[in-house]
C-alpha cells in the first residue's frame, strides 16, 4: 500500500524536473484545497477522510491501488469546470472516474491528485426520437439509455457486460465494446457529440451532435477511447438504434474450440454478419454452470450465435447458420424459442467473468485481439502456455471480431501464484501480437498494459500519439501516468504555470 499524503503535504507532484515546486505563499496546502473545493461543491461534495478515500483506491482492476489526496463529487458540468480549472491553475493532477468498473486501471487515482467522481451527473437531459439521439450526463448508467427509449422501439447498441453498472462517461473513455459490436460497432460509432472540459478548464463542443459531419478535425473520434487523458466529457450525445424486426438466437455445442472456430469461419464466410457470436470453452462452461445454472450442455466448447434484422433475412440466414454448425460437427443445437430462453443463454455468457470465482479463488482477466483467421492457432498456443506454467486458463470471447478474454485462474494465498498468473497473461498477450493482433480490444491500456505498448507500437508511433495529448493537455495533469510508458514533453515550459496575479488574488479570497 502506498503512503497516504500527510495533511500538510504540498500537492501536485507530477512529471520530472522539479515540476511543481511552489513558491512560498502561493503554495496550496491540503487544508486550503479542501476548503476551496468545499466552496465550489459544498461540504458533501468533498471526501478527504482517509477511510472514505480508500473506497476509491482502485477501479475494477484491483491489483493496482492508490489512495487519492482528495475525492470530489461534482453535481453539474459547471462544478466539473471549476474543479478542473482549480486543479489546472494550481498544477494538481486529476483523474476522472465513472462507476469504477474499468478493467485496466484507467480510473486509478494519482497520488497527491484529485479524483473527480462523476456518478452524481446522472441526468438524461434529452430524448430526441425524431433525430434518434439521447443526450446524457456522463454518470448515466449504460442500460438506462436503452430503458429511456424502449417504449419508442429504440435501444442503445453498445452493451458491455458491465452495462447495468458502468457509466456512459466511462464507456466513452474506454470506447467500450460488448457482445453486439461485431455488427453494430463500438461506443465510438454511437457517440455523436460531447461537451468536454479540457484540462485547462475551458469547455469545447466536439462532434456534430444531432447534425452530421461537423467541419474541422474529427476530434470526437480521437477523444472517444482516450481513457480520460484528454479531458472530461460532461454532456454526451448518443445515437440510438431502432429495435430489429426479428431476433433469433442459438446455442451450439462442439467437441472443442477448433470445431467451434470452424463454425464461426463458416458463418461469417457465408456473408452473414451476426449480431453476436460468442464462444466459451469447457472450463468456462463448468464455471458458469456452477454459478448461474443456465443449463448449458457439457461440451468442449459452446457458441452462442444471434442474428437480428428484417424478418425474411433473419429466417433465411438462421437456417444457414444451423446448417453451418451441423457441418462443423455440432453435437447439439438449442434454439431460443422466446425472450426468456434467449435471456438465459446471455445470462450464462455475461456471468462468465464473475463465475470464475466458483472454480478458483482468484483470476486474472486478459483482453486481447487477433485476426479471426488466427484464432485456432492462438487458442492452441494459449493452452500450451497454461500447461507449461501449470495454470488453468479458461476462455470466453467475442469470436466474430477475434477479441479474446482468457481468464488465468490462480490462488492468491499460494505464494508466487499471482505473479505467475500475471506472467501467463503477459505471455498470452504477446502471443496475440505475434499473430498480428492488438494488446486490447475493449478494456483499454490504462495502467495495466503500459509496459507492453512498445511491443506493439514504435517510439515514433507513441510520440506522434502524444502530440495529440500535448494539444489537449500540455502539462500532463489529466489522468497522468496512463497509456504511455514514457510521457513526452510537450515543449511547453515545464512545471506549474504562472498564474495571472489577478486570478491568484481572486482565488486567495476563497481560502
Amino acid at each position, binding site marked *: 500500500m502506498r503512503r497516504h499524503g500527510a495533511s500538510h503535504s504540498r500537492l501536485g507532484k507530477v512529471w520530472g524536473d522539479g515540476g511543481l515546486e511552489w513558491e512560498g505563499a502561493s503554495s496550496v496546502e491540503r487544508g486550503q484545497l479542501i476548503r476551496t473545493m468545499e466552496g465550489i461543491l459544498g461540504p458533501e461534495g468533498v471526501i478527504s477522510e482517509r477511510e472514505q478515500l480508500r473506497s476509491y483506491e482502485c477501479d475494477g482492476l484491483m491489483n493496482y491501488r492508490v489512495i487519492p489526496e482528495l475525492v470530489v463529487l461534482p453535481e453539474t458540468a459547471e462544478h466539473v469546470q471549476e474543479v478542473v480549472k482549480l486543479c489546472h491553475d494550481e498544477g494538481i493532477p486529476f483523474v476522472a472516474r465513472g462507476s469504477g468498473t474499468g478493467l485496466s486501471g484507467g480510473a486509478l487515482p494519482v497520488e497527491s491528485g484529485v479524483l473527480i467522481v462523476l456518478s452524481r451527473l446522472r441526468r438524461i437531459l434529452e430524448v430526441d426520437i425524431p433525430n434518434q439521439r439521447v443526450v446524457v450526463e456522463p454518470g448515466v448508467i449504460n442500460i438506462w439509455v436503452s430503458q429511456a427509449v424502449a417504449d419508442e422501439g429504440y435501444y442503445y447498441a453498445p452493451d458491455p457486460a458491465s452495462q447495468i453498472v458502468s457509466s456512459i462517461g466511462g464507456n466513452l473513455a474506454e470506447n467500450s465494446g460488448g457482445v453486439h459490436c461485431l455488427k453494430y460497432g463500438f461506443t465510438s460509432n454511437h457517440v455523436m457529440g460531447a461537451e468536454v472540459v479540457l484540462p485547462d478548464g475551458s469547455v469545447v463542443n466536439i462532434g*456534430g451532435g444531432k447534425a452530421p459531419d461537423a*467541419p474541422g478535425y474529427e476530434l470526437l473520434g480521437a477523444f472517444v477511447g482516450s481513457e480520460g487523458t484528454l479531458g472530461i466529457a460532461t454532456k454526451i450525445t448518443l445515437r440510438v438504434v431502432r429495435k430489429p424486426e426479428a431476433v433469433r438466437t442459438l446455442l451450439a455445442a462442439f467437441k472443442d474450440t477448433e470445431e467451434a472456430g470452424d463454425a464461426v469461419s463458416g458463418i461469417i464466410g457465408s456473408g452473414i454478419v451476426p449480431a453476436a457470436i460468442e464462444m466459451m470453452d469447457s472450463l468456462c462452461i463448468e464455471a458458469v454452470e456452477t454459478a448461474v445454472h443456465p443449463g448449458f450442455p457439457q461440451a468442449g466448447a459452446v457458441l452462442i450465435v444471434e442474428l437480428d434484422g*428484417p424478418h425474411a433475412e433473419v429466417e433465411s440466414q438462421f437456417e444457414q447458420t444451423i446448417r453451418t454448425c451441423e457441418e462443423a460437427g455440432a453435437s447439439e443445437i438449442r434454439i431460443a424459442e422466446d425472450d426468456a430462453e434467449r435471456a438465459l443463454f446471455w445470462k450464462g455468457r455475461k456471468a462468465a467473468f464473475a463465475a470464475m470465482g466458483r472454480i478458483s479463488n482468484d483470476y486474472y482477466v486478459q483482453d486481447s485481439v487477433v485476426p479471426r483467421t488466427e484464432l485456432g492457432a492462438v487458442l492452441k498456443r494459449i493452452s500450451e502456455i497454461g500447461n507449461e506454467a501449470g495454470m488453468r486458463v479458461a476462455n470466453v470471447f467475442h469470436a466474430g471480431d477475434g477479441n479474446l478474454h482468457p481468464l488465468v485462474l490462480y490462488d492468491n494465498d499460494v505464494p508466487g501464484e499471482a505473479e505467475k498468473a500475471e506472467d501467463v497473461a503477459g505471455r498470452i498477450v504477446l502471443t496475440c501480437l505475434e499473430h498480428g493482433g492488438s494488446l486490447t480490444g475493449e478494456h483499454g491500456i490504462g495502467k495495466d498494459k503500459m509496459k507492453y505498448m512498445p511491443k506493439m507500437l514504435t517510439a515514433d508511433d507513441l510520440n506522434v500519439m502524444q502530440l495529440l495529448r500535448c*494539444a489537449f493537455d500540455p502539462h500532463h495533469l489529466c489522468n497522468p501516468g496512463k*497509456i504511455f510508458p514514457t510521457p513526452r514533453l510537450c515543449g511547453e515550459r515545464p512545471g506549474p504555470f504562472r498564474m495571472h496575479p489577478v486570478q491568484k488574488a481572486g482565488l486567495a479570497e476563497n481560502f
Partner: protein
Amino acid sequence: MDTRTQNVSLEDLQNIVGEQHAREAAAEDAIDGVEPRFVAEPGSVEEVSALLKLANDEGLAVAPRGGGTMSRLGNPPRNLDLVLSTARLNEIVEHVPGDQVVRVQAGMKLRDLQEQLAGSNQMVGIDPPETGAGATIGGVVAANSSGPRRYRYGTIRDLIIGVTVVLADGTVAKSGGKVVKNVAGYDLQKLFTGSLGTLGLIASANFRLHPLPEAARTVAVELADTAAVGQAAQAVMHSQLVPSSVELHWGEDAKLLTVLLEGIPPAVEAQAETASFLLRGFGDVRERSDEEAENLGPLPVPGSFTGGDEVALKISAPPSELTGVLDSTWGACSRRGVTPRATGQAGIGVTYVSLSGGDEEAKVQVVEELREVWTRRGGSVIVRAAPAAFKRRVEVWGPLGSRLELTRRVNEKFDPRGILNPGRFVGGI
C-alpha cells in the same frame, strides 16, 4: 519565382524519387488558380518521408494529391510549392478475406480496390460520388467523402481501423492495426479522417470490410412538397426497414425520395414490398430495377463533378429538419434570383445543394443566410466547390465555435511550420 523555392531544385527532388518521378508543375496542377512549382510522385513511404523532410526544412508549402477529384474542396491555398502525388502508392498491401480486413496504399483508386475485393464478395462500405472519377483511398479519407450507403455502413471514421501517416517533418507513424476491435493507444486514424492533408500525408489505411450484397431493389416515391419529404424520410427512419440508403432528389425536374434495399434476395423482396406500402401514403411509388440501383436518382451530386461556375454547398442539419433545410434554401434563393437543386442523404441530415443563375453577390448572400440559420440550429454549411473568386469572398468551412483554439493547437503540434496545405482548411489552417 517564389523565394521559398529558391533553395530547392528539381534535381533535389529527383534525387529522392528518381528522375522520371519529379517534374516542373504545369497549369493543370494548380489549385484554385495557385500554381505549384514542382510535382513529385514518391514510390515508397521512405520517399514520402524524405520529400516532406526536405520541404519542412526549406519551408516549402506542400499539397498532397490523390486522384485530384476533390481538389476544389477547401479555401484557396495561401502558398503552394510542391504537389506530392500518391499515384505510385497504389497497391493492396494485405487482404485476408477470412478476416474481412484490407490494408491498402493511399494512392490506390477506390473503384480498383472495390473491384478487387468483389472477387472475394467483399467491399469497403463507402460509395462517394467521386469514386467513378478516380478518387483514391487517401483522398477519400482526407476529404472524408461519403455517399448514399453511409445510411447503413457509416462514414470513413466508422470503417477505418488503422493508418500509416507521414508527418510534415518526415516522421512515419502508425496507429490502429489490422483487427476490427482495438483500443490500444489513440485513434489517430479517426483524427486524420477529414483532415485534408493538414496533419500529415496518409500513406496507407486499413479498413474493415462488409459482405457484398447479393441483390438490390430501389423503391422511389414522387413527392408533392417539402413537407411530404420530411414526413416520408421520418417514416423510413423509424420503420424496421434496414435500407442501405435513403436519398433525396429535389429540383425542377425531379421530386423524389429513393430507398435502396440490399441483401439476400428473399429479404430484399420482402423489404421492398414493405417500403412500397409504407411510402404509398406520401405519393406515387415505383420500384426501380436492379440495373438502376447503382444510379440512385436523376440528379448528379452537386460539387462532385467539378467545373464551370457551379457553387455547391453541403448543408448538415439534424435529419428531422429536412423540410426546413429545403424551405430555407429555396426561400433564400428565390428572393435573389438563384436556382437551387438538391440531392442528399435524407435519413442522415446531409443535403448537397447546387446554386445556379443569379450573380456572384446573390450566391454569396444565399450562403451567408443559410450558414447563419443552420449554424444556429447546430449544423453547418460548407462550400463544397466554387470558383476561386467566390471562395475568396466566402470562407468555405464556416465557423468552428468553441473548438477553434483546440483545432489550431492540434494543427500546430502536427505541422508546426504550417507547410501542409496552408490556408485551405478550417480556421485559417
